[in-house]
């Protein structure tokens, strides 16, 4: 047990690091996609739609296999960690885009018009008026996506990243202490996911208060 615990700790840190990086990139991708679609920029808009459909309708495991084993064959080589982050960003981007889109759509048209009539430029309107409101509305969707993406990190062991799943499988193979290893696995995932889940419901409640305030 004393031998295994540090390994799990290390694996958990790796899981969280890749998860956080991947989620940040996913948010970036999602924001870009939703802005491009909202502003109806030609070509880019269609590209974003194609990307969203591709990413939402394929499993992360298949995406990872393609990025990690397939892409090097045409000269795009990546190490497992970059690949994990890229995979998570590719998958998460579309989910985040949907969350942001619902937020953007919920902001009334009158907000846009009022801001413009006050003399703000289009960019300023978006930055100071639309985005803050849209973000608040999309928070429940975003936290749900964050939890979903953190859970999805469990498939990283397939591309030989030493994450929690990988460590558990490894230790089971080494010592046959199946029950202990699995219990630890559950405990560590709970340690990562429970706080996020609690924080999510807390945020959601606050957002609901904000909505009542308006």
């Amino acid at each position, binding site marked *: 047990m004393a031998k295994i615990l540090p390994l799990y700790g290390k694996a958990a840190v790796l899981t969280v690091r890749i998860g956080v990086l991947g989620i940040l990139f996913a948010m970036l991708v999602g924001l870009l996609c939703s802005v491009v679609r909202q502003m109806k920029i030609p070509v880019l808009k269609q590209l974003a739609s194609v990307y969203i*459909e*591709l990413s*939402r*309708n*394929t*499993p992360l*495991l*298949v*995406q990872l*296999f*393609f990025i990690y*084993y*397939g*892409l*090097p*064959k*045409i*000269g795009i080589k990546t190490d497992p960690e970059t690949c994990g982050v890229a995979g998570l960003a590719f998958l998460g981007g579309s989910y985040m885009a949907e969350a942001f889109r619902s937020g953007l759509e919920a902001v009334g048209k009158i907000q846009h018009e009022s801001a413009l009539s006050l003399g703000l430029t289009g960019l300023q309107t978006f930055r100071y008026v639309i985005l803050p409101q849209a973000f608040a509305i999309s928070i429940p969707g975003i936290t749900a996506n964050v*939890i979903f993406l953190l*859970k*999805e*990190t*469990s*498939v990283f*062991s*397939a591309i030989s990243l030493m994450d929690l*799943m990988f460590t*558990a*499988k490894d230790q*089971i193979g080494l010592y046959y202490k*199946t*029950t202990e290893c*699995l219990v630890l*696995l*559950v405990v560590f*995932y*709970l340690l990562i*996911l*429970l706080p996020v*889940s609690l924080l999510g419901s807390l945020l959601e409640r606050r957002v609901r208060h904000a909505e009542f305030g308006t």
Partner: protein
Amino acid sequence: MQSLGLEVLFKGKNFARLLGGLWTALQISLISIAISMVLGTLLGILVGRKNGIGRVLMRCYLEFIHIMPQMVLLFIVFFGTAKAFGWNLSGELSSVIVFSLWGTAEMSDLVRGAVTSVPVIQYESAMALGLSRPQVFRFVILPQALRRLIPQSINLITRMIKTTSLVLMIGVVEILKVGQQIIEANRKSSPNAAFGVYLTIFLLYFMLCWPVSLLARQLEKRWG
């Protein structure tokens, strides 16, 4: 022009084998989907009722399934129960058990959400019009709840189809595993097979899930 490794697919029965692998994964998901839809609906209706211990147990089950990655659940059922109870579940059976447990939890949530989404005033008005309880449920609540439930359950189906790709990790020979075998077998003759094969698998999954997603969106738009 570098080879994209697509030629492997046309060798022998390789493409048919890939499709066979997809069918294995699809069978697991279809069985789990069928079980989940039935059990989830029952559970979703029951969980709304207020009775002490059963309710607490139910909440624990739902919360645990929701928060744990499906991979962890697969490991628990595949490796954990083998050790604890001494039986030897096949990979296929373990995955059906796990995806049914997970699907049931998700489905029950959708059902509960759909039923509670019907405003109370609908119940009260129907009662005031003199409808009996079964009538209220059958003619007033059910049609409204279903409009919300059906698109969401179709979405759940695509999620379950996508998630079954995980069974690779407990040794079920599904499409990714078949892909690996094909790539290994043709390592010498077409070293770039990994690109072509994984791209094909990617597109196959897409072609499987995309129409279903579109259907869900259409229904959502029409009934929303």
